[in-house]
């Protein structure tokens, strides 16, 4: 049954959305959110939404309690201290709100002004599907939900005492009737493949990996909202490349040199062997500190991109993170050599604060 509170509740959710949107930049550069991800929901701490009033400062107040203990016995820690920030301002209480990943992606899209992705080729066709998923109290008789209606009538008769075991006659009245209702949902008939590649050579430290982790989380969130059947695969490389699972992708640490071509080669082979180009929208994201082994390998990468990868994929993104050893040359060379390529995007991510802009650069074209 529809509740009256729903209007107020929706309005509150709307305000919450506004808060999230306003603070999105902050959320994006913090890893915290990723840890809060559930299956469909993500729990976001936002500053308490409150109506100000004249009230007493909590700490100077004290109070009366009840129980055992001598003078000086601590009875509660100060919750206000939670934020751990210095200063004389009291920490703000946080409000935890759950929103769906889909909603989060929508907010991300609105705030970053990300265009809707246009799937390539003939796969633009969308099918509209009517889904009978809701139950309403009114509707045409042809859509009457027999079981629900019966249940309601049964419930009513039992509670009102009109039901008898000997003569179990159930007569639904108008209030008992329940009807099926539908929603038309356009579903894009296309498939997406995302391949994340990361350089895990000795020079990529924890901080760099964290940046990659945060950025891929947001990219993933966005792309998932755009494609129905999204497949995600992970490749790591130092001097050689291999496929790993998600867990490994973020935690693996290899040492050794860097040969970026190994990853590109691996990616190319993966596409050729497993994916039909007509059916799949393919995205490649590669993160590295750009410190490639040799100029020769870089040339190899460029030619691989030019001849093989770029014609096959919707988008190839290269993100160069700043490592403690400084930043490599790879990004500059890509930009110089493949300047005209439309579906190659490069981005320099020097710190967590750049993630926001980097996502915008990568996804801003709507490829």
């Amino acid at each position: 049954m529809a509740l009256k509170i729903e209007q107020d509740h929706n309005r509150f959710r709307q305000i919450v959305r506004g808060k999230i949107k306003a603070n999105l930049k902050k959320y994006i550069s913090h890893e915290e959110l990723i840890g809060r991800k559930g299956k469909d929901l993500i729990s976001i701490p936002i500053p308490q939404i409150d109506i100000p009033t004249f009230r007493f400062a909590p700490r100077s107040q004290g109070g009366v309690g009840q129980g055992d203990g001598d003078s000086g016995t601590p009875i509660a820690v100060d919750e206000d201290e939670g934020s751990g920030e210095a200063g004389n301002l009291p920490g703000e209480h946080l409000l935890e709100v759950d929103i769906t990943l889909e909603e989060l992606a929508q907010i991300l899209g609105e705030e970053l002004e990300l265009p809707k992705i246009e799937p390539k080729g003939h796969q633009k066709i969308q099918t509209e599907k009517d889904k009978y998923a809701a139950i309403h109290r009114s509707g045409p008789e042809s859509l009457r939900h027999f079981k629900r209606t019966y249940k309601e009538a049964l419930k009513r008769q039992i509670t009102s005492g009109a039901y008898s075991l000997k003569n179990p006659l159930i007569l639904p009245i108008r209030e008992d009737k329940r009807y099926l209702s539908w929603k038309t949902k356009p579903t894009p008939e296309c498939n997406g493949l995302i391949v994340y590649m990361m350089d895990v050579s000795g020079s990529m430290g924890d901080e760099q990996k964290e940046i990659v982790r945060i950025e891929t989380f947001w990219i993933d969130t966005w792309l998932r909202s755009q494609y129905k059947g999204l497949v995600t695969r992970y490749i790591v490389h130092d001097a050689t490349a291999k496929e790993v699972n998600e867990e490994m992708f973020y935690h693996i640490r290899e040492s050794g040199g860097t040969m970026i071509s190994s990853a590109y080669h691996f990616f190319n082979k993966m596409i050729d062997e497993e994916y039909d180009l007509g059916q799949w929208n393919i995205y490649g994201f590669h993160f590295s500190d750009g410190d490639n082994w040799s100029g020769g390998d870089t040339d190899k990468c460029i030619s691989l991109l030019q001849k093989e990868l770029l014609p096959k994929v919707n988008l190839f993104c290269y993100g160069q993170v700043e490592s403690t050893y400084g930043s490599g040359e790879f990004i500059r060379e890509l930009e110089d050599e493949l300047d005209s390529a439309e579906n190659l995007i490069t981005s320099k991510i020097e710190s967590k604060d750049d993630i926001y802009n980097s996502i915008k650069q990568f996804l801003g074209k709507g490829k």
Partner: protein
Amino acid sequence: MNLPPELKRIQEEIEGYARDYGLDFCETIFEILDFKQLNEVASFMGFPNRFPHWRFGMEYERLSKSYAYGLHKIYEMVINNDPCYAYLLQCNNYVDQKIVMAHVYGHGDFFKNNFWFSKTNRKMMDEMANHATKVRKYIDKYGYNEVEEFIDICLSIDDLIDRHAPFIERRGRKVASDLLDPEAEQTVKKIKSKDYMEEFINPPDFMELQQRKIEEDKLKKRGYPEAPEKDVVLFLIENAPLENWQREILELIREESYYFAPQGQTKIMNEGWATYWHSKIMTQRALRDSELIDYADHHSGTVATQPTRINPYKLGLELFKDIEDRWNRGKFGKEYEECDNIETKKSWDKDLGLGREKIFEVRKIYNDVTFIDTFMTEEFCEEQKLFVYKYSPEQEAYVISDRDFRKVKQQLLFSLTNFGQPFIFVKESNYENRGELYLYHRHEGIDLKVDYGKETLRNIQTIWTRPVYLETVVEGRGKIFKFDGEKHSERNL
């Protein structure tokens, strides 16, 4: 949903017991709700119809979540209205429903008989629904955001009322026509004239003089309150340049505030009284053998104590029981007070049997402040293990600071005075002769939360439109905060 037959039977049984004990209440209508509906009603503070506002939605989110996580469960809600409405949670078992019903009759008796409720509107169910209709009407006319923004402001100051006002006839309420009628005398009336005579009939110098006078009058009209005005909301309703719909909304929110005020003033007594009676009715009459464990479990949950907070159910119950015992045994009056033999005092028993009569009298004429002040004794304080706690910066925690009876009582009374809210008055409304509003916080040892205070000041400024001041004390120094419509400023006194 109406009560199913079995619950109906239980209700009649419990109601019978309650009447046998002498409880006196309005007709009570029980309704069964599922947890969603109960959370809804609870978010609306008991009323099925409230004006639309997101704050109720926020409360709903909080309640639903803590219910889902099993952190809490609302057992009952009861509305001070005639007839009295009470809600039962569908999934509760019969013994829970029995306790709740007995508890509700306790509240019903309290609502009907306690003096502090004597002025509350007993048709509030209808009134709240009317308020909702009114606000919806304004939303249709002026737009959701506009109305919502204004309600945000109203709710920010809705506790700035004078809780004793319903009992005091201080002065006649100004009627609407006395209030600033915004357009009327803004300009000087011209005498009709032909063009060529205009200059002589309405000489420009004179017109200008008159105009200035009117403007000065207008500033003066915002005149002082003769004595500091505690009902800040009323003062704003009467004197701020509000539009009619805004004034109506502020007025209805003020009315709701006054409706809820006595519940805040008698929380300990009201819950104590209801708990006393559910325990009496259950243990002496209604409880069946098979229900004993469930009852004990439920009741112990109701009266459980926490070190950081006073449980009003527990404190009220124990104090009523203590009063009953003292008056049964004659432990009061000059002779008892002056006796200094501890042993004699302890075993004092004049077998007066006045206890029951006394607690009925107490529930009639006291509120929490006078209740604690009059009846809380040193022995009681010790027996209940009450203490004062403070924030200790060294330990970065709240710690027990004292068990001294006088300090406990003082702190407890302080936290109850004025509903635990700071005292704020309107001191001047033509501050520095510029029509600026000067508010005064009567500081009684505890500072205001500054950031909240500033935001509230901003809200009041939106209503008043001219700059607004607040005088208070921060860390021992007199301070004046000001918001002029654009920025905050402050200076030391």
